[in-house]
């Protein structure tokens, strides 16, 4: 056998290995699949695959067609549902797992006590995880931001930015963080498919009460149902979920002072007013 002595064969072998080479997102995939296996190892009833998925549909596209095929592959036609469910949950997790070195922009809109509220965030997906959050009643959102060393709070009433040393918790800056964690927990459950305002969505029950709705087309988050202590449910519309490149213009989205250049700045811990 002389494959390693022959340059052409070595190159061919190199290319063959490259086709199967591990990729950065594999670890996320491994964790997600492990979570699904863990959930299967817990005792409890299994739900059946929804007819919508089992039957397939031209509109569902290639991925859903493959899922429908796999539902039959794994079971020799016996109809075991959970593998297809797991695949959908995995795709949803992948769709809300940001790549490094970009800015995750999320805008959520909901109605609380008859008032439209907005929460909009921009967050770096790599260190130092700088972020800016605008949150509150539509048109009157307060803002806060953090660049990893200093935190900033903007008061629109006085057009003032207050600076103080020390970072805030970055978990505040990513409203999808909890969704991501719970999708990866292995305890999320596909509850079926629904159509809301003409968009076909997967409905996924998350372990701590949140319900996520993800587009069948690309698994992007579309709505979140957030149950309240009084039994009511606030539906949040995911008006934006996107990754922005780290251009100078987009970097400015992370900064309160860049967004409000005319604001008065108050610095704590020895800082002076400008």
């Amino acid at each position, binding site marked *: 056998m002389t494959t390693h002595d022959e340059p052409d064969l070595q190159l061919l072998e190199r290319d063959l290995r490259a*086709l199967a080479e591990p990729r950065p997102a594999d670890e996320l995939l491994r964790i997600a699949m492990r979570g699904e296996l863990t959930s299967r190892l817990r005792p409890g009833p299994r739900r059946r695959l929804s007819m919508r998925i089992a039957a397939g549909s031209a509109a569902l596209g290639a991925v859903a067609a493959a899922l429908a095929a*796999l539902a039959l592959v794994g079971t020799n036609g016996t109809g075991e549902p959970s593998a297809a469910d797991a695949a959908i949950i995995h795709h949803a997790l992948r769709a809300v797992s940001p790549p490094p070195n970009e800015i995750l922009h999320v805008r959520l809109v909901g109605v609380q006590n008859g008032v439209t509220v907005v929460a909009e965030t921009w967050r770096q997906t790599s260190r130092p995880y700088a972020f800016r959050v605008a949150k509150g009643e539509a048109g009157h959102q307060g803002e806060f931001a953090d660049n990893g060393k200093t935190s900033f709070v903007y008061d629109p009433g006085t057009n003032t930015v207050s600076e103080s040393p020390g970072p805030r918790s970055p978990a505040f800056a990513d409203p999808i963080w909890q969704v991501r964690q719970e999708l990866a927990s292995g305890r999320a459950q596909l509850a079926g498919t629904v159509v809301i305002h003409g968009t076909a969505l997967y409905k996924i029950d998350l372990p701590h009460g949140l319900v996520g709705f993800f587009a069948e087309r690309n698994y992007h988050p579309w709505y979140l149902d957030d149950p309240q202590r009084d039994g009511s449910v606030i539906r949040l519309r995911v008006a934006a979920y996107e990754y922005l490149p780290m251009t100078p213009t987009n970097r400015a989205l992370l900064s309160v002072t860049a967004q409000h250049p005319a604001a008065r700045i108050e610095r704590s811990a020895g800082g002076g007013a400008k």
Partner: protein
Amino acid sequence: MEVTAVVDRRSARVHALDPDAELVAAARAHPREFLALYDRYFERVLGYVRLRIRDAATCEDVTSQVFTTALEQLSRFRGDGSFAGWLFRIAGNAVHDVHRRRAAEPLIDDRADPSPSPEELVLARERVHRLRVLITDLRAEQQHLLALRYGAGLAFEEIGPMVGASPGTARVRLHRILEELRRRYPHDDA
């Protein structure tokens, strides 16, 4: 008594040969222990599938399906071969079923997909496309052998029993496949 003795001898022999025997026994006794087998084989199964299926989402679905099926059917694994051989047989069947289904649905043929996959960022797009086509044109058992070696990264000592041959024979078979591929896959950077 005699039958029992034969079974015990065979079982003991397989146990000695199969490096996963202890983990398999543990998983049978305590299903949660299956996760150790999953951790051991996740990367290899994913690599195997990636060599045979281009579409990334389908690769992930198939890999997930392989382990789900293995977990569900572990009680049917008789231990008269290695666990790895059994697992990659499940993987081979899952890949085969995807290809069979896709043959009936040419619109979702891997080869017709124009979107770039990550490996195309490393290798020239045309070469990868050519290599993919050549692999797809191989017989299923040839693809299986190729994927065990270059996808799962297994040694010939492991591959041989999986394909019903000695390690040496598996090596020779693979060499023939490589020669066949090389004739149809000219390198321009050799």
